[in-house]
């Protein structure tokens, strides 16, 4: 019983980590139709940013989360015009162009990080590191739980923003029909830049949490890029609320397969589920994607 309950908790908390990586990615894809291959590299750069701030100024990395959001928002704002150029104009297949362009960005980020910060494996510690709460039979690691809460809050904020504010409506209108939104006076480029910056900011912040949980190195992003793609396929391409459900399904799947079948079958199980979803319900498990 203890093992079963702990497996559920592990699964939920792994799901929480997948949410924080997948949520911005899904927003970016859902509204701007940009498949950002560099999502894992934003995580990696966020982790390094946290590491550098701790090394330079000291204190707990958690207090730098807002600063990192602002920095990554600004970087996203600067990068977006390049992506916009790659995906607009007379290109035959803008989605593929975006994919190729961001793939290039990911390689530059990875290579750059390796050149600047080297090959060493870095770690950051927060006041929550190594702490956990025992509830009945289960142990809940504090840092992972905070990541889960962070993912939950960000998803709710994104949803409130998209569905309850005027700017959210503008974003959704742009996502639905870019040309008409443009004709109605929306600055499509600015909307895109805002969404991309928001995504970069949130993903950068998630990097600090992930870096504190695991370890920081230049190649750490690849795994999160794959997870982000998994979650978006499962959630339904671009359906933001679906990320929550999909990430938890992925987390639980990973946890249960590892504990009850064997760790070596986890990736196979994940791929099987992803192929199954693509074959049976290509719009995601909630059938709400595009």
């Amino acid at each position: 019983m203890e093992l079963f309950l702990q497996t559920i908790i592990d699964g939920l908390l792994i799901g929480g980590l997948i949410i924080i990586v997948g949520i911005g990615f899904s927003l970016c894809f859902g509204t701007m139709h940009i498949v950002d291959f560099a999502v894992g590299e934003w995580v990696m750069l966020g982790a390094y940013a946290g590491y550098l701030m701790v090394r330079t100024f000291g204190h707990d990395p958690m207090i730098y989360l807002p600063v990192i959001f602002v920095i990554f928002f600004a970087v996203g704002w600067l990068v977006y015009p390049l992506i916009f150029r790659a995906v607009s104009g007379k290109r035959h297949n803008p989605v593929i162009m975006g994919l190729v362009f961001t793939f290039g960005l990911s390689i530059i980020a990875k290579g750059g990080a390796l050149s600047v910060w080297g090959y060493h494996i870095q770690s950051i510690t927060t006041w929550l590191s190594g702490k956990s709460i025992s509830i009945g039979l289960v142990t809940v690691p504090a840092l992972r739980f905070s990541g889960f809460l962070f993912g939950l809050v960000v998803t709710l904020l994104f949803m409130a923003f998209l569905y309850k504010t005027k700017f959210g409506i503008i974003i959704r209108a742009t996502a639905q029909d870019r040309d008409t939104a443009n004709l109605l006076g929306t600055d499509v480029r600015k909307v895109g830049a805002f969404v991309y910056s928001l995504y970069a900011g949130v993903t950068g912040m998630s990097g600090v949490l992930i870096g504190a949980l695991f370890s920081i190195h230049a190649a750490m992003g690849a795994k999160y890029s794959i997870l982000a793609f998994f979650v978006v396929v499962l959630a339904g391409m671009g359906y933001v609320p679906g990320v929550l459900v999909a990430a938890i399904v992925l987390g639980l799947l990973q946890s249960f397969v590892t504990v009850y079948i064997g760790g070596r079958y986890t990736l196979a199980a994940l791929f099987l589920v992803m192929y199954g979803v693509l074959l049976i319900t290509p719009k995601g498990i909630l059938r709400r994607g595009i």
Partner: protein
Amino acid sequence: MKRLGIFALITVAILMVGYAQAQEKRDFFKVGVVTSLSGELAFGGTVTKRGYDMWEDAVNAAGGIDIAGKKYKVKLVYADDQSTPATAAVGTERLITQEKVDFILGPYASGPTLALAPICEKYKMPHITGSAESPLIWVKKFKYTFGTIPPVNLGPRSAIQTLAQDVTPKPQSIAILGIDDAFSKFSAEAMKAAAEKAGLKVLKYEIVPEGSDYTPSVTAIKSLKPDIFAMGNHEKAAIEMIKIAKELKFNPKAYVQHYGMSTPDFRKGLGKDMEYVYGISYWTENMKIQSSGLFKNPKEYADAIRKKFNVDPDYTEAGCTGAGLAFQEAVRAIKAAPPLTDAQKDALIGALEKLDIVTFYGRIKFATEGDFYHSNAGLESVTLQYQGGKLVEVGPPKTRVAAPKYPAPTWDKR
């Protein structure tokens, strides 16, 4: 006319290449190095690079390799395998066919080494790896490949033996978690074999893919309450697994890890949580070895590494420098001046097989038969443990500096 021009150009080019080949004359040894300078294994690749560079520096500072009274310097030419086997193979081919190196010093990891070795067979190019430990390399019986670090199946057993024989109360059970790569899973397998031999009950033995979230695996192991939690992996996964064990309040009586616990990243990544972790090594700077070659003893070597690179050396650096020393002695034995001819390269293999030297790194004596063909049979592993922030030798009894601390206190009592 145009065709004639192209024909003439090609002819000139061929003649020039032939001329260049005929002119290949050097008064130094050109040594190819294939290792991981980028990608996932760049950390370890750089450790090997330090070891190889140290050998190059030391041998050149001593004037070079003495061949029949004349000294020839050494020049290393690197090829980055980008942490992938395919690139290791391409890099090796380039070093052999274009750079025309005399011999090759091999990669950090076993995967790239397994891709490099067949290329060396094809071109009959002598190769010593100063780092790779997978037994898969040796069972293939490559004629041109040697290694200074014993195979991983022989390594972790000293740590398990120390725990099974030298601590009280005697541990009864063990759970082993390994990573699925050419090295780590054999490290895990060696732990399992040693545990079974020592009469420990193996409660779980699991191999998981690299890069996955190890939390559920550690949860499954925690539920079995083993006395020993053993990990076959590299430093990154080791750091993460111990972090997870702490988060889950998993309190085994001993942690065993191979390879990576002796690296600076492990110490920095875990801080105080590294205390009580066991590991193994083939070499430490405290070992009492006297050598007549370059570096008189382990301490002198460790000081040289610290002076040049500002890091404490691990056995991988020492093994890589040892690989250079093995070549140096073998090439001196056959009195072959650079560049080496094909016949001399073959003679070098014979000399390496006959080699039996004691260096600062310990004894180098390559096996010439059996499943560990051409791996170093001259060394035995020692058991290490973190005690008071320092790595100390806790076994086997003849090399022990301090008694093993067992059981490890629970996380809330540290």
